[in-house]
């Protein structure tokens, strides 16, 4: 008997086209004669609750079971047609109690909601979906256009790997029996956090950094603001690893991350971009200030040695490359990174422990340029001409 009900409850959740009568659905696809019979019966009865018991296919069904089945049908109907109130009133369900967990459900002012809540509570308990009716209900509503029923059975999820990851990260999980929704949400939040941050340094990782970069480019294209991207690479980092071991290397990485974080504004984003490479996005950073910030980053590393153990301190320097986002223009993150990377390469090439920012082209035309421009053309150089300046608008 129960297995039959289980089937019934599950099949209720198969979505169909709008406007389809759920009874047809059951008849055609599900062969749940008992449910159809119940609904038909309810249509004839003013109050289904009053019915002592019904006989379907030779089996007597207790009325509370019938209520559940009816309400499930009502709900199924609701999901696919929208006549739920009428059918519901026909069923005449009142106060109820979940037959599995014994929790009472009060209809209150919103009887409609009450029935859904009660029925689903019953359904999820009976079908072993867990005790959180709302989870089932919400997911059903959200996913009613999907081809599969959307009830999630916690026991069927392979959460072991996810759980060990988030627990290792120190996430405190609520007991799953209390609220499966909150439990799953906490696991998901924990995983999101893990997948957007770097495990070693705690900074944003490459993935979330690319997100930040993309958003910043959009913003700059909209506002015309100046934004600077810095790539910071630890000089001769391989030597640290090779000479003092990887633990020392890790310690250096963590400290560099911390110092980086400490010498930029809260609105700036610091990320670990690669092995020993960090990225900083500085919104609203003017041309005159950019070099100053980049230098501050470089000096913050050089300023004092990095203690990696009680006996060992290392001098670590960084090379910094930087480039500004093109103003008013929608550009792509890859291009911005490539330009910045070129400057970082230049800084490395020029001897490390230095800052190279992409030249902001001086729009004033120098005498040298002018001479080359029209000296060779034998044009009249004596003609007076005003020097071009950016302020001159026509």
């Amino acid at each position, binding site marked *: 008997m129960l297995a039959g009900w289980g089937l019934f409850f599950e099949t209720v959740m198969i979505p169909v086209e709008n406007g389809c009568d759920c009874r047809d659905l059951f008849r055609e696809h599900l062969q749940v004669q008992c449910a159809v019979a119940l609904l038909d019966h309810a249509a004839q009865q003013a109050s289904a609750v009053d019915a002592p018991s019904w006989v379907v296919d030779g089996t007597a069904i207790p009325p509370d079971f019938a209520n559940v089945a009816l309400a499930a049908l009502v709900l199924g109907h609701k999901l696919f047609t929208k006549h739920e109130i009428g059918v519901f009133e026909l069923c005449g369900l009142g106060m109820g109690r979940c037959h599995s967990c014994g929790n009472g459900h009060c209809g209150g002012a919103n009887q409609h909601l009450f029935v859904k809540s009660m029925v689903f509570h019953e359904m999820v308990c009976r079908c072993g979906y867990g005790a959180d009716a709302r989870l089932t209900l919400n997911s059903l509503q959200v996913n009613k256009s999907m081809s599969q029923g959307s009830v999630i059975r916690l026991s069927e999820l392979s959460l072991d790997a996810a759980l060990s990851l988030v627990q290792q990260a120190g996430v405190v999980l609520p007991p799953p029996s209390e609220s499966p929704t909150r439990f799953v949400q906490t696991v998901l939040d924990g995983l999101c956090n893990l997948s957007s941050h770097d495990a070693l340094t705690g900074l944003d990782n490459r993935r979330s950094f690319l997100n930040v970069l993309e958003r910043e480019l959009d913003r700059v294209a909209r506002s015309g603001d100046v934004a600077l991207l810095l790539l910071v690479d630890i000089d001769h980092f391989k030597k640290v690893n090779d000479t003092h071991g990887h633990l020392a290397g890790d310690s250096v990485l963590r400290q560099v991350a911390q110092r980086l974080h400490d010498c930029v504004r809260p609105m700036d984003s610091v990320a670990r971009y690669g092995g020993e490479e960090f990225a900083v996005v500085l919104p609203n950073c003017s041309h005159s200030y950019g070099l100053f910030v980049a230098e501050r980053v470089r000096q913050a590393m050089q300023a004092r040695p990095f203690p990696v153990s009680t006996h060992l301190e290392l001098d670590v320097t960084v090379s910094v490359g930087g480039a500004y986002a093109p103003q008013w223009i929608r550009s792509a993150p890859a291009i911005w990174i490539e*330009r910045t990377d070129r400057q970082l390469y230049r800084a490395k090439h020029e001897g490390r422990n230095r800052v190279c920012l992409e030249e902001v082209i001086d729009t004033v035309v120098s005498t040298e340029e002018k001479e*080359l421009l029209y000296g060779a053309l034998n044009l009249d150089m004596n003609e007076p001409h005003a020097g071009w300046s950016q302020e001159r608008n026509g």
Partner: protein
Amino acid sequence: MNQAVPQSADGGQAPKAKVAATYVPMFPVDPQRAVVFAVTSGKGGVGKTFMSANTAAALAKRGLRVLVLDADLGLANLDVVLNLFPKTTLHDVFTGKATLREAILKGPGGFDVLLAGSGLVEYSRLTAEVRDQFQSVLHGVLLDYDVVILDTGAGISDVVLYAISLADEVLLVSTPEPTSLTDAYATVKVLAAQQGRRTIRVVINQTLQPGEGRLITTQLQRVVDRFVPSLGGGPVVLSHIGDIPSDTLVRSAVQKRQLLFTSAPGSAPGQAVAGVAARIGDMVQRWQAARRQG
């Protein structure tokens, strides 16, 4: 000839070069939409509006649907060149007094115009509002035309830069005069630095002898190669697409407020305009073909 200056008739230069450039078109790639040209110069009075209007007439004669949009929001003078006395302008569209359709006028040369109205000081500085309005206006007309020409203002204000940033192609107009060349060169510098433009089309106006414009463009290219790194690296290419010879007919047409291309199509400058339009027509075809291929 300098190798760095490509022949203007070279195939597929524009769309290919754009792929690698920093510049990403502001509008969705739709093969049906107009190719947007920005006509700019740096210095004022070198014939931007003359080029915009006459090229538009020549393109219209070639069967293209053309709109000239007065992007000189602060000091527009397209109406003067075309002898139009508009009742509605872009200003009315911006302020909601007129719809976009109402503000689009039929020009004398078989093309449409959208005039800005003169003396609108509040539009001479780019604000987010002006920018959004301008962009939505352009959005509103893109599907109705094959070519949209943005006649920008002189100088390199942020309004001009913004208008250019919306364009697929930049047409740089200069005369052989040192002042004009200097400003044209400065414009190239800014466009390369700020927008990552890699290809800029050059028209030299008021040339005195054949070949002068190509020579000048070659020289401009030399200086650019030496002094102008593009945003993101890579060469900045100036592509010479024509000269307009100096001719008293041009002056008299401007004074009579006539379109040279319609009043004297057989004249030397009239034919030169037709030549420039032919090259622009080719570019339009290449852009459309590139968009169809995705």
